[in-house]
């Protein structure tokens, strides 16, 4: 009944996808846009590329206003979306690449050179003549990257380029992007749900939540946002009391029926705390880890209720 009613009466909620936000990206920088689902990251990317026109504010990319969709602007940018494909499904990738060669007016010799260069870096030379629909997700994504880099763009927008890929494929794409950036010095703006992408590639992080910027700075500063703390995990041969005085000051999180505990310890106290626990409790193993970006994100999200 609700569906029928919606034919003539519908309530709309107006919500700003992106609120006033100041962001400056330097030439050659790689920045990571982080944030939960619906934070406004993809909308930002679409505004940067001129796909979506902002209702207010000023935006300049490479000296152009993206909303005007100037021909020269479109020649200088590239966009990869992990969840969408620009390659034709029913033809080999090489045919789609040739079409792009015509769009960007790339001379034939240069085109073949670029195809060879990119295909060998991405290890997809044999896949160039295979129909796109017959390729694995990882192979397709590599070819998507190739398609977006053919015209040697000055700025690359990568919207979740490793989504859905297995760990090996993710790592290869990260390595490729790092090498490509090192060689060409292009500007890269990346969004990803995989923190490994961000930590491996980005020099700078911009945290967006509910369309607002919550952090903008180097990745190390982001990690240190919660204080200089480390996570330490201890494994015991006997279950431990959850109120043990050696553990309770360090925000313990117990697991495996008291046989494991994870503590959050300031870096300057780490040595003393570990020594005391190792001396007084039946520890079988332990491991430490720096405050990972995921944890910082989770903590910030729970603090802001985003």
């Amino acid at each position: 009944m609700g569906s029928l009613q919606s034919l003539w009466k519908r309530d709309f909620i107006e919500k700003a996808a992106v609120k006033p936000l100041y962001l400056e990206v330097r030439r050659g920088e790689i920045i990571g846009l982080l944030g939960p689902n619906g934070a406004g990251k993809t909308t930002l990317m679409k505004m940067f590329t001129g796909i979506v026109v902002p209702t207010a504010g000023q935006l300049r990319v490479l000296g152009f206003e993206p909303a005007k969709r100037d021909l020269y602007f479109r020649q200088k940018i590239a966009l990869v979306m992990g969840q969408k494909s620009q390659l034709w499904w029913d033809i080999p990738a090489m045919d789609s690449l040739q079409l792009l060669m015509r769009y960007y007016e790339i001379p034939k010799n240069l085109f073949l050179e670029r195809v060879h260069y990119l295909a060998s870096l991405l290890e997809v030379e044999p896949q160039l003549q295979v129909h796109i629909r017959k390729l694995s997700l990882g192979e397709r994504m590599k070819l998507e990257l190739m398609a977006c880099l053919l015209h040697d763009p000055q700025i690359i927008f990568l919207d979740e380029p490793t989504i859905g890929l297995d760990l090996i494929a993710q790592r290869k794409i990260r390595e490729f992007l790092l090498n490509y950036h090192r060689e060409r010095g292009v500007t890269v703006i990346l969004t990803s749900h995989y923190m490994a992408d961000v930590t491996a590639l980005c020099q700078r992080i911009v945290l967006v939540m509910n369309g607002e910027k919550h952090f903008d700075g180097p990745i190390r500063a982001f990690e240190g946002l919660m204080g200089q703390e480390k996570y330490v995990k201890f494994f015991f041969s006997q279950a431990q009391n959850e109120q043990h005085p050696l553990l309770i000051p360090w925000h313990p999180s117990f697991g495996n029926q008291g046989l494991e505990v994870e503590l959050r310890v300031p870096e300057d106290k780490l040595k003393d705390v570990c020594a005391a626990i190792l001396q007084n409790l039946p520890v079988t193993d332990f491991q430490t880890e720096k405050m990972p970006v995921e944890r910082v994100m989770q903590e910030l999200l729970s603090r802001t209720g985003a």
Partner: protein
Amino acid sequence: MLGTLKKYALIYREFFATCLAEATTYRMHFVLLIVMDLLFYATTLTTVDFIYQHVSAVGPWDRNQFMFFLAFLLTVDQLHMTFVSESFWVLSASIRNGDLDFLIIKPVNLYFLIFLRHIRPASMLLCFVTVFLLWHFGTKAGLGWVQFMLLPVLLILALLFLVSLEILISASMFWLVEGTGVNFFRMQLQQVSRWPDFVFYGLPRRFFTFVIPVLLIGNAPVQFLFSPFAFSSLLWMIGLTVVIWVLIERIWSKALRQYESASS
């Protein structure tokens, strides 16, 4: 200017190559499309032929004139199916799923990319049939060589007018998001255009001549061919094409600014 023309010619050649590669991937589908179009031509012609077995004239036209009119519209339809029809269906889907994003950022004219990107090579092969129909019924209807010379120009004008109207109507897809309904509406308008204007009376005739002027597509050029002094409809159609393109520029510009894309 010459450089731009060359660029677009090369892109179009690539469109054709990729569409041909795509079409021939599924051989039975390729053949079925041809058979389906042939069936459509046959049913259209035999329906009118059946009527003329019982009457000697429909309105002012005899059998040969009516059949030539149908041949003209079938040719416009064949050109439409070959060069643009598929693109309207793809546009509807790409607005809904956000695939249009990739076209917007390409350094190529957007109308060109949207409306000329999808070619149906199977329908192209049918040009032999439509050209034969035009020649056969044109000769029987008494057309002279001058009229036959004018025929290609008139076909292009008719196709351009039809496509312009459709592009204008398609802008609504940006606000409706689901454009399948708009595409069916377009198809029904094409159905209306397949009849001579004298079949309609009063308000419907005025509506389809002046408001949504689909009756001009076949009627204006064919009436001009039959009576060269009856060119007012043809002039009206050419003038309207210009007006429609002014409207397209304005409405499409607004539509593209309001394009919301789709979430990823």
